[in-house]
């Protein structure tokens, strides 16, 4: 079950929507160990279809994202159709079928951050990295995502790089944040 798939965004229209690039290289390498790991996760939840979302969380935690093959193995274990799994994966914004960057950047676009200028900060990140929201830079270093309210409204606008929180970020401060990770 090990394969490298060059996904044609024509076929995977969701990718086209999310990335807009010509070709997305998705490396999928489902070794036996990985299949075993998915099976183990599914077993943890008794292979119950109603635990699908918990299973997907665990799987995404394990693999960083949810490639088609992972969803397929999950569907098989939970005795539900893979279309249903995909339907759930695409419904929830927390689940991703695209690997995130080495340093995933999340910009809070909750209301508090919005009124304190999160939009301009987001624009600056997009400009600086030359990618859109949901995309990963070609070197795989950064990806941009938006999230709604991390609950640190006192620090708004808030930006997360990985787990680290940057508060009161101004558009001018974007470059400094990135430079820290560019080294």
């Amino acid at each position, binding site marked *: 079950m090990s394969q490298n*798939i*060059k996904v044609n965004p024509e076929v995977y229209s*969701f990718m086209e929507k999310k990335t807009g690039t010509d070709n997305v290289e998705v490396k999928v390498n489902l070794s036996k160990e990985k299949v075993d790991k998915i099976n183990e996760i599914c077993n943890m939840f008794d292979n119950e279809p109603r635990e699908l979302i918990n299973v997907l969380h665990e799987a995404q935690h394990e693999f960083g994202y949810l490639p088609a093959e992972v969803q397929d193995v999950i569907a*098989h274990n939970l005795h539900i159709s893979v279309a249903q799994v995909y339907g759930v994966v695409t419904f929830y914004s927390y689940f991703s079928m695209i690997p995130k960057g080495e340093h995933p950047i999340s910009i809070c676009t909750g209301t508090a951050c919005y009124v304190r200028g999160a939009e301009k900060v987001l624009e600056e990140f997009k400009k600086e990295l030359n990618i859109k929201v949901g995309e990963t830079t070609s070197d795989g270093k950064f990806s941009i995502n938006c999230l709604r309210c991390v609950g640190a409204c006192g620090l708004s606008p808030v930006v997360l790089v990985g787990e680290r929180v940057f508060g009161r970020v101004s558009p001018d401060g974007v470059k400094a944040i990135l430079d820290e990770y560019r080294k």
Partner: protein
Amino acid sequence: MIELTIDKKKVQVEKGTTILKAARKAGVEIPTLCHFELCDMGIENKPGGCRICVVEVEGRRNLAPSCITEVQEGMVINTHNIRVLNARTTVLKLIISDHPFDCLVCARSGQCELQSLATQFNIRSLPYEGEQSRYRKDTSPSIIRDIDKCIMCRRCEMMCNEVQTVGALSAVNRGFMSVVAPAFEMNLEDSPCTYCGQCLSVCPTGALTEVDHTNDIIRALSDSSKTVIVQTAPAVRAALGEEFGLQPGTLVTGKMVSALKELGFDYVFDTDFSADLTIMEEGTELLQRLKAYLAGDTEVRLPILTSCCPGWVNFFEHNFPDLIDVPSTAKSPQQMFGAIAKTYFADKIGVNRKDLIVVSIMPCIAKKYECQRDEFKVDGNQDVDYSISTRELAAFIKEANIDFLNLPDADFDDPLGESTGAGVIFGNTGGVIEAACRTAYEIYTGKKLENVVFDNLRGMEGIRSAKVDFDGIELNIGIAHGLGNARKLLDEVRAGTSKYHAIEIMACPGGCIGGGGQPYHHGNSEILSKRAAAIYTEDERKTIRKSHENPSIIKLYKEFLGEPGSHKAHSLLHTEYFPKSNEVTLHLNGEI
């Protein structure tokens, strides 16, 4: 009983009734869009998503969707005041604003429920234009998905998952981009789709349509070097008339044959003929297995499963690959016809098989895929070249400017046009097994079967079981229509708990009369029962009602095949099945 007032009319209905149905009882028709029901089959789709059927309930803050709101004592309902009408029209305009405006060239034009509503609501402007959701068009051997036209009524999703348990489709994405699609928005061809076509038979718009082969047929008909012959499936004659305004259940066999001749087919044959042939082969196989079983052979696979429905064949190849040696190996009537036509008949008229074009008129969408299967090709030449649906035939007749209603009746041509009542009833659920019983009884017992009607095999329940007395030996027969029902029986077989000797399975609810290629029934299940009744009427009208008594069949065996189950019969009339994994196969234009 609950009393309520709808548009100033008092009406009494039972508790649990929806406003929509109560209104119907009061003679008030409320427009609907996503709501869909085949009540006799217990099939209902009411996500409450389109919001077209909203009505005003006095005392309620917002409008109520009538299709899912249950009545309450003393409710006062207005179904068409200005608030309701404005809401409905606005919502409809919104739906249309996210729908392509290519009605003129849409396959569904004239039959489109969205279009009808736009007419009914007198929509003359589209004030809410904006971005439209755009998706890739996907063409499979049987079905075209043009989901730009999807209005998220979820009927197809319901059919595919709840009724058919195929699981090829699901709602995917969220919000404005949500749509019904296969996993990973892959091609339907790579999904576990069985091509049963139930999705498109309930689709209100042109989002799901069949692949149209009419133009290929026109090309063949206009090619003088080709001999073009046609076979018509049993269920077609019971439904074709509907497309020309005739009452459901009107048999139009003679007019259909005339029309096909007018269209220029060189020979008009009947799939009923090959249905009789199927009985000879499948019945023989059943008896062989049964005899072996009774003789104490523990290896023999019972129950035997019918195999004439291609949607069903796809289904078990996908979902029960471990059981592929259980179904009968007999080909479907369509393919038996093709095999005989391109050998026996081609020889008879002295035409090379490459110059003989075999067309089939089917109530079915899966037949398009079936005739393209590799097993049914000789050196790349298909036994059946093109399969078109009842709807496509009707459109073809209209396109050719044929005055169908005033056509004289005509008879099928010989030799592949002669059939018995047993072949006709293939179109109904339970029909194949009834036909098989008529023949198997006589062959097994050596006695004449006086009453050929097996009432206990007929009906519309999704799963039926009946006992048939074979002169002291009781045969347990199971019947399922709809793949969800089939799955239940198959799970029993897999678990080794099946009590049946033989099971008939049809993919579509009602059998072929409810096929994915039939005229749209728009949720009126009465249409299905009338078609079924018409099929039984045709059977009654036949003088010969047992397949093995069909003179052309007898002649075919004598002249060409030898015995049922002979080596030649096997090579031409039997097939094999291939397990299909439901695992994701990423056929991305060969880019793997």
